[in-house]
């Protein structure tokens, strides 16, 4: 259970983390999503006590990071962006050192369990400097698991790994998520949406969005889009569509008698039946029809882009809130449209 209030950190005149507040519950997998330089790593460094915040406070399981750092740090296992490995030790020596350092309750059986979980049993007596990047990353994860801390913070755990290793690490994180609270950071959207229960989007040092991947996908759209492939004359099709108040957005392409276009209508409605009847009446068969929901990528770009529509942004944030006030606001905003 982590509570963060008003966290701020400057590097000189640059504000890396700007009054971020959030609350994390036990047993879920959280994802920090954001562009490079957004402040994800800095937030994680602040959470684990590597850096001191300029303002705000962090409470881990009731222990304040500034006042009782030892208790707070005992509860966290951290894998930083660059795994902190001593290259001149073997894997076994290194993990034994970590056990002693954290004063962890980790006997040979528990260590064996960690080694098996991270797939390190074959390389246990090899020097860390002779391991490949993937294996070094796994040693980093193993180091975070020592002592079975209730909270795991992993900064870009799959960076630099090949696709197979990425899948394995994701599986590992999913299995860890059942017993621990996991905080993950990544800029690979698919990874976050697959693995995480809740996503926190951070950009320019601020928390710009919070919610499950589905929630974000649903509420992020101001409209529903539909791509059509219709067989027929451009004029006929467009006339038929304009009769039901639909105007194509974006370019209309004509290839081999096939018309490709995209229409949109406000969220909450469903115009697919009307399109069917209208085009059927105009004798223009619909050969392909796809509804595109706003993907996490689009949400991400919308929320972190510089030229985002302020109204749309406010709507998203309001809809993500679970208070009745926020829901009312959202409902009235939709009615106004």
């Amino acid at each position: 259970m982590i509570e963060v209030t008003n966290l701020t950190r400057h590097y000189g005149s640059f504000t890396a983390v700007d009054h971020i507040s959030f609350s994390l519950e036990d047993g879920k997998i959280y994802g920090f999503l954001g562009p490079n330089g957004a402040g994800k790593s800095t937030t994680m460094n602040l959470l684990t006590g590597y850096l001191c915040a300029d303002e705000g406070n962090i409470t881990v399981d009731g222990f304040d990071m500034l006042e009782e750092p030892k208790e707070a740090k005992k509860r966290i296992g951290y894998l930083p962006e660059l795994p902190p490995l001593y290259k001149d030790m073997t894997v076994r020596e290194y993990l034994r050192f970590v056990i002693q350092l954290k004063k962890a309750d980790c006997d040979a059986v528990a260590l064996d369990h960690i080694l098996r979980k991270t797939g390190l049993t074959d390389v246990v007596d090899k020097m860390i400097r002779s391991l490949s990047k993937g294996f070094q990353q796994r040693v980093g994860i193993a180091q975070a698991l020592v002592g079975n801390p209730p909270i795991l913070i992993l900064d870009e755990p799959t960076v630099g790994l090949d696709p197979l290793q990425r899948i394995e690490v994701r599986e590992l994180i999913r299995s860890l998520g059942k017993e621990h609270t996991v905080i993950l950071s990544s800029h690979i959207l698919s990874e976050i949406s697959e693995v995480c229960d809740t996503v926190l989007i951070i950009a320019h040092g601020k928390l710009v969005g919070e919610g499950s991947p589905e929630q974000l996908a649903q509420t992020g759209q101001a409209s529903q889009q539909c791509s059509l492939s219709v067989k027929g004359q451009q004029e006929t099709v467009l006339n038929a569509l304009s009769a039901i108040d639909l105007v194509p957005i974006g370019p209309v392409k004509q290839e081999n008698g096939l018309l490709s276009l995209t229409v949109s209508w406000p969220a909450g409605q469903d115009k697919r039946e009307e399109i069917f009847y209208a085009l059927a009446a105009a004798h223009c068969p619909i050969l392909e029809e796809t509804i595109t929901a706003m993907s996490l990528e689009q949400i991400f770009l919308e929320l972190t882009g510089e030229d985002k529509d302020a109204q749309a942004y406010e709507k998203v944030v309001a809809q993500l809130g679970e208070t009745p006030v926020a829901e009312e606001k959202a409902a009235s905003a939709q009615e106004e449209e």
Partner: protein
Amino acid sequence: MLAIYRREVRSYFTSAIGYILIAFYLLLLGIYFTAYNLNGGYTDLGGVLYYTLLIMLLFSPLLTMRLLSEERKQRTDQLLLCAPVTLWDIVGGKYLAVLTVFAVPVAVACSCPLLLAAYGSKSMLLSYAQIFAYFLIGAACIAIGLFFSGITENQIVAAATTFAVLLCCYLMDGITTLISSSAWVALLAFVLVALLIGLLVRYMTRSWRPAITVAAVAMCVLVILFIINGEWMLSALTAVLSALTLFAPFEDFAGGIFNVNAVVYYLSVILLFLFLSVQTMERRRSNV
């Protein structure tokens, strides 16, 4: 602290550096001992120890250059700082590890009085007291090296700075006579110090105004004091400089006098530089 201590000691002895430095030290100790005591016939170990003190100028930077700078460079300091250990645990563990490496040649030196006792009468207490003082000076030089290792990521810079500072301390006697020739020189020296303090304030507060204010005030005070009594300034400078002579008190020990003041002085130096090392690490967390 124990975990860090063991790791560091093991690190010195799994890489070549521990063995090479100890071998080098023992070689020089052996040469001086043979020449001075065995061939020269002196029963007193003080001479050998005094001359081998010069080796500390090289030994300390080489031993300590890697201690904290490598942690920063490889980012393994993240492991240490995110673990439930205090900064004193980290600095203390590392310091004791280096002392252990230094203790090996000193332990060998402890066998020298026994060797000499076989050939003539001598005071064991005197010899071991001298070795104890020698160990303390070495410990102080190592503490200085540890501090400078903590202020940079680059090992060479750490080593060079430690060497420069230790060299200044070694030559401080000569420097004192050189610049204590007149009150004007003393004034100049203190003005330089005032300017340095101004720069330090600028670094800590990141703005010029308090820095310039502090420096200006300090310089005014100095000029006023100079006008009132120039000689006072000269004696103040001499006192300050003599406090920086790290190696001079050993002459007392070499001469057979157990100077308790010196012991306290060395212990203070050790504590001061360990404290400064901890502060450097603490500061880095707040102001990267």
